[in-house]
C-alpha cells in the first residue's frame, strides 16, 4: 500500500490510484499531444478531476475546470467561450470521452499550458482569466515560503477544487509542502466536523459562511485548529465570534489573475490582509487616512492589476482593506467605508445583517444608506437617534430601512452597486414577505 497523495471524503488516493484513473486517456485523442490541448473538464467525481489535473499540469496542457453539477449545455458554452478544443463531461473518467468542440475563439497558445478560470465578477459577465502553470508554480513556492505556520498542518479543503482557492491554495500548496490534503465534497456539517476531528492539526479552507455554520454546531468544549478565510473581510462581530472558536484564524487576499498576494496567519482586526507574498509587489495607500487602490505587480511577467480595492499599508508593512473602491461613499468630500458603518450597526441589539451603500445626493454628492435585517421590528426613529450617538456625522445614513432579507447575487455576495442603482421601493418589492 503506497502512501496517499490526497483524500476525497474518506477515500485515500495514491499516485498509483491516480495513474490508474487517467490510464484510459493516455495517448488517446487530444492526449496524443497534451501540450497543444485546451480541455474543459466537468466531472462529478472530484478524485478523477484531481488525478486528471495532476497528470495534465506537468505535461503542459491547458485546462478549464468547470464546477460539477453544471448542466451539459452550460458546460459546452463555457468551454467554447474560453476557446477550448475539447470537453470532458460526465461522472468520471471511465464514462467521459472528450468531445471535440468548434471553438469560438482561437486563444494564443499558452507557453507550457494554462489554468483557465472564470472570475466571479461582482459587476456583470464573468471574465476569462488564463494563468500559466509556470505563474502558478511561482505562486505556490511563494505561498509555501510565506505561510510557514501551515507547515505542520493537514489542509482540509471544504470548498470547490475547481476554483483557484481550493485547487491552488488548498490542494496544490499542500502537495508542494509534502502534506496530504483532505478534500471534503460531502458538505453535511457533522461529516465535516468528523473530518476535522480525524486530523486534529487541521488547516480548514472553506467559505466564511460554512465556517460560521460549523462553529454553531461545534460543541462548546471544542475548538477548530486553524481556519483560513479569503474574500471580502468579515464584519467585526462575525470575525470575533470565529476567533473565539479557532486556535488560529488566518486571512488571505488575492485575485484570479495573480492568485494569493497577501496573507496573515493571525487576523486580529477586520480588514487586516497581512504582508505581501514574494511573487508580487503591492502598492496601496500609506495610512488609514490616505488609502489608495491596491495595485498588484506580478514579478515574473510584469503584469499589473488594479484590484479596485481601497487599502493601505500600516507602519509594520501589513496591508489593510477598507472597501471596494466602487463601494466607497464620498460624502461631501469625505470617504465613508461601508464596512465601518455596518460594523457599528451590527452591535445594535437584534440587528443580524446590515449593508451600507451609496445613493446620489444633489447637495452632498453621495449619501450613506442602510438596509438591515433584524430579529424583531425595530423603531427607526430610535435607531436614527442611536446612529447620531455612535457614528461621525458624515457616516450617519440619510436613509435607513428594515427589510426581511438582503438581496444577494447568485454567488452569495451582496452587491452594494446593485443596491445603489435600484430605487429603494423596487428592492422592497423584490423582498418576499
Amino acid at each position, binding site marked *: 500500500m503506497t502512501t496517499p497523495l490526497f483524500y476525497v471524503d474518506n477515500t485515500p488516493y495514491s499516485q498509483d490510484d491516480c495513474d490508474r484513473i487517467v490510464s484510459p486517456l493516455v495517448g488517446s485523442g487530444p492526449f496524443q499531444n497534451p501540450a497543444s490541448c485546451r480541455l474543459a473538464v466537468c466531472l462529478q467525481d472530484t478524485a478523477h478531476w484531481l488525478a486528471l489535473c495532476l497528470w495534465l499540469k506537468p505535461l503542459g496542457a491547458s485546462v478549464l475546470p468547470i464546477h460539477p453539477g453544471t448542466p451539459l449545455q452550460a458546460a459546452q458554452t463555457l468551454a467554447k467561450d474560453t476557446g477550448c478544443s475539447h470537453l470532458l463531461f460526465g461522472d468520471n473518467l471511465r464514462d467521459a470521452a472528450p468531445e471535440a468542440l468548434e471553438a469560438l475563439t482561437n486563444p494564443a497558445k499558452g507557453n507550457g499550458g494554462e489554468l483557465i478560470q472564470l472570475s466571479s465578477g461582482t459587476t456583470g459577465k464573468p471574465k476569462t482569466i488564463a494563468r500559466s502553470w509556470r505563474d502558478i508554480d511561482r505562486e505556490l513556492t511563494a505561498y509555501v515560503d510565506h505561510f510557514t505556520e501551515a507547515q505542520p498542518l493537514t489542509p482540509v479543503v471544504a470548498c470547490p477544487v475547481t476554483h483557484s482557492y481550493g485547487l491552488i491554495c488548498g490542494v496544490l500548496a499542500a502537495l508542494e509542502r509534502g502534506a496530504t490534503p483532505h478534500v471534503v*465534497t*460531502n*458538505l*453535511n*456539517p*457533522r*461529516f465535516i*466536523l*468528523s473530518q476535522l*476531528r480525524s486530523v*486534529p492539526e487541521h488547516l480548514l479552507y472553506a*467559505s466564511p*459562511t*460554512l465556517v460560521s*455554520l460549523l462553529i*454553531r*454546531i461545534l*460543541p462548546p*468544549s*471544542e475548538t477548530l485548529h486553524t481556519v483560513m478565510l479569503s474574500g471580502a473581510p468579515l464584519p467585526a462581530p462575525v470575525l470575533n465570534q470565529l476567533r473565539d472558536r479557532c486556535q488560529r484564524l488566518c486571512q488571505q487576499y488575492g485575485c484570479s489573475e495573480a492568485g494569493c498576494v497577501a496573507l496573515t496567519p493571525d487576523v486580529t482586526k477586520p480588514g487586516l490582509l497581512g504582508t505581501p507574498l514574494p511573487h508580487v509587489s503591492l502598492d496601496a495607500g500609506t495610512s488609514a487616512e490616505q488609502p489608495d487602490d491596491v495595485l498588484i505587480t506580478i514579478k515574473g511577467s510584469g503584469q499589473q492589476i488594479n484590484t479596485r480595492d481601497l487599502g493601505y499599508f500600516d507602519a509594520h508593512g501589513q496591508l489593510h482593506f477598507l472597501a471596494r473602491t466602487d463601494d466607497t461613499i464620498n460624502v461631501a468630500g469625505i470617504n465613508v467605508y461601508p464596512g465601518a458603518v455596518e460594523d457599528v450597526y451590527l452591535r445594535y441589539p437584534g440587528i443580524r445583517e446590515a449593508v451600507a451603500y451609496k445613493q446620489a445626493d444633489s447637495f452632498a454628492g453621495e449619501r450613506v444608506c442602510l438596509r438591515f435585517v433584524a430579529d424583531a421590528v425595530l423603531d427607526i426613529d430610535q435607531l436614527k437617534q442611536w446612529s447620531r450617538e455612535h457614528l461621525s456625522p458624515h457616516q450617519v445614513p440619510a436613509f435607513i430601512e428594515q427589510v*426581511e*432579507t438582503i438581496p444577494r447575487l447568485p454567488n*452569495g455576495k451582496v452587491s452594494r452597486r446593485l443596491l445603489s442603482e435600484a430605487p429603494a421601493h423596487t428592492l422592497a418589492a423584490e*423582498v*418576499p414577505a
Partner: protein
Amino acid sequence: MSANRHAAIKAVLQQHLPNARLSAFAGSARLNADLAIDSIMLLQLIVHLELEHGFNLPEETLLTQELETVDDLARLLVANDQKEPSL
C-alpha cells in the same frame, strides 16, 4: 414523528430562509428544483434543524445522491440525543 420533521423543516424555511419557495412546500417537493434551496441554504437548514428543533443529519449521511426531496431529508434526520465522541 415524520409529521414533526416536516413541520420542523417548514418552520426553518419560514423563519430563516426567506429566499426558499415556501409555496411549493410538500413532502414530495424537490429541495433544489421546487423549493429553490441551494447548497449553502441546505447547510443553513440542517444547522437550524439541529440547533432549534433537535434533529440532526448523522455524520455518515451523504448530502449528494440520496437527498433530493423534503421526504428524503425528513427520513434522514435523527433526534439529537446520542452524544458524539469528541476529540
